[in-house]
């Protein structure tokens, strides 16, 4: 009885896992198929050969090196800027008293809740006024700090006992030294969490670059991949899937390496 129940559970588990995994596997399979195999009915489940021609074709169908560069640069700069801007702000909100703190905190919370889909239009007008469309600026500046990161970091800074800071003050440590030697090390897991979160959301972002770039060489990787579907002569799914493999695999690798941390990062955002 017990054994058969376990059997049922494991088969159900297998089904769930298959439902989740199938699209990935199907993408992978398609990325190796030839065009003939792709358009065949019934579909070809396994490609006949594993050559990389689809990947080459996809890569060469547009300036993918530029796309990749754009993605890497903007993501990296955003990460650095967020690190620089988040920590002092979170420290001030967690530990210092000043006039206007409540208003500034409310602004932070509002920014935490506003989706970019709501404010893209005025932002677009602003950046075009400044002649910054098709530069890195619109892809970087609005993300130079993270309301979410400030929110999370403030939370973790608040958990540091007051006595530890008082101890440090009695030990003649300056505010800056206190931040550097006590706050940052204690909040390291949270900082990593926030930066991972930022990395994934920036790397994957499609909407913002779609709005803020018009020139081909200003676009990012997700945009470049998305553009592949709009060819006139039928969608070359094998190449499109190959491009998606290129887009997905790095993130999946990061995910499976830092799986614990990422899951924690995302759940933490949910729980708090």
């Amino acid at each position, binding site marked *: 009885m017990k054994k058969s129940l376990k059997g049922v559970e494991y088969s159900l588990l297998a089904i769930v896992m298959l439902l989740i995994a199938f699209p990935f596997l199907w993408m992978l399979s398609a990325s190796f198929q030839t065009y003939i195999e792709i358009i065949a009915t019934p579909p070809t489940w396994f490609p006949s050969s594993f050559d990389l021609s689809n990947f080459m074709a996809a890569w060469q169908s547009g300036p993918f090196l530029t796309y990749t560069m754009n993605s890497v640069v903007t993501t990296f700069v955003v990460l650095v800027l967020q690190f620089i801007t988040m920590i002092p702000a979170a420290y001030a909100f967690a530990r210092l008293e000043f006039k206007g703190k409540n208003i500034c905190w409310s602004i932070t919370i509002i920014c935490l809740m506003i989706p970019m889909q709501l404010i893209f239009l005025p932002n677009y007008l602003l950046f075009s006024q400044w002649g910054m469309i098709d530069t890195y600026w619109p892809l970087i500046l609005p993300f130079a700090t993270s309301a979410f990161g400030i929110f999370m970091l403030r939370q973790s800074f608040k958990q540091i006992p007051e006595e*530890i800071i008082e*101890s440090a*003050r*009695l030990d*003649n440590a300056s505010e800056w030294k206190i931040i550097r*030697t*006590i706050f940052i*090390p204690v909040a390291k897991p949270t900082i990593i969490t926030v930066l991972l979160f930022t990395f994934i959301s920036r790397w994957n972002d499609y909407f913002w670059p779609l709005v803020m770039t018009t020139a081909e060489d200003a676009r990012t990787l997700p945009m470049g991949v998305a553009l592949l579907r709009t060819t006139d002569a039928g969608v070359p799914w094998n190449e499109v899937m190959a491009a998606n493999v290129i887009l997905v695999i790095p993130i999946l690798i990061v995910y499976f390496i830092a799986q614990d941390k990422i899951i924690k990062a995302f759940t933490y955002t949910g729980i708090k």
Partner: protein
Amino acid sequence: MADVKLVNISKDYDQKVRKKKQPTKKAVEDINFVIPSGSFTVIVGPSGCGKSTTLRMIAGLEAVTEGEVWIGDRIVNDVKPGDRNIAMVFQNYALYPTMTVYKNISFGLENIGVPKKEIDARVQQVATLVNLSAYLDRKPHQLSGGQRQRVALARAIVKRPDLYIFDEPLSNLDAKLRAEMRNELINMHKELQTTFIYVTHDQVEAMSMADQIILLNEGNVMQIGSPMELYHRPQNIFVATFMGTPAMNILPVTEVISLVHQTVKPGESIGYRPEKARLSEQPNDDFFWVKSEIVTTELLGSETLYRVKNKFGEQHVKLTEPFISTARDVYVFVKHEDLYFFDENGERLEGVNTHEHHQQYALR
């Protein structure tokens, strides 16, 4: 080395904080006292009495609302905590969680630019002193409570401060370790010959360690003096009942009582300590006595604690020899010179008991 002097010190939290901590009153009101250089002064009182606030004002962690804090010959009201040359040991130890024991101890020295070589020498020396040499590479979370306590001590000692401040440092330890640490602190004080200011709510700690006790209640100083002074010559009912366990028995007087030396009026109270009372089956007019009955008996080993009931209410009597009796009525009796008298405001009436003639317990 310097005296610490508080002159007319008051602390009033701003409205926001006050709502949480003290709804109506100032946290500390018009406090004056001197902590002589080299003394072991314990500030004691029930929770919420303002003792921690007072301590934190001395350390500079809390702003002073009114009055002056003197350390030596300078007013330090506006001096940053780090510039007061003070070391503080906190109740929860406040160790830097991400630093090793070594780093925890050396942190303060690094901040004031002591040369690396000297830092190392001083850290090693202090680590030996508190028996932590083997643990210098550990992080705080890898240490036991007692070890953390010793790191906190080492961190204080290494700075060679003018003044050590302890904020209930032993309350997180178990009973046995606490007794050990009390001894260690007393020895440490002897060796360092520096001023110790120690805050606790535990009168036993105060009695056993202090050479000066400052007893606070509701933000006011109740009495300042040596442990024996506070024990034998309490200035009011609060001091009398706070010092000593079990507390002094207070007998509210409702009708005029004539005793050998004086008469006690209604509204006043008589006090006696449980350990000064005796039990008997007979009244004895050489003593102050009350007809009572025994409510409970607790055998404590070397002593026996009785709870007795009489017309004044319930009291404790502590005897070294058990009192065995089958009689329903027993008599509590106390020597006249062991009685204390308090007026209707709870202030002690001076000059009526022989303890006045006992030796004066002067400060060291």
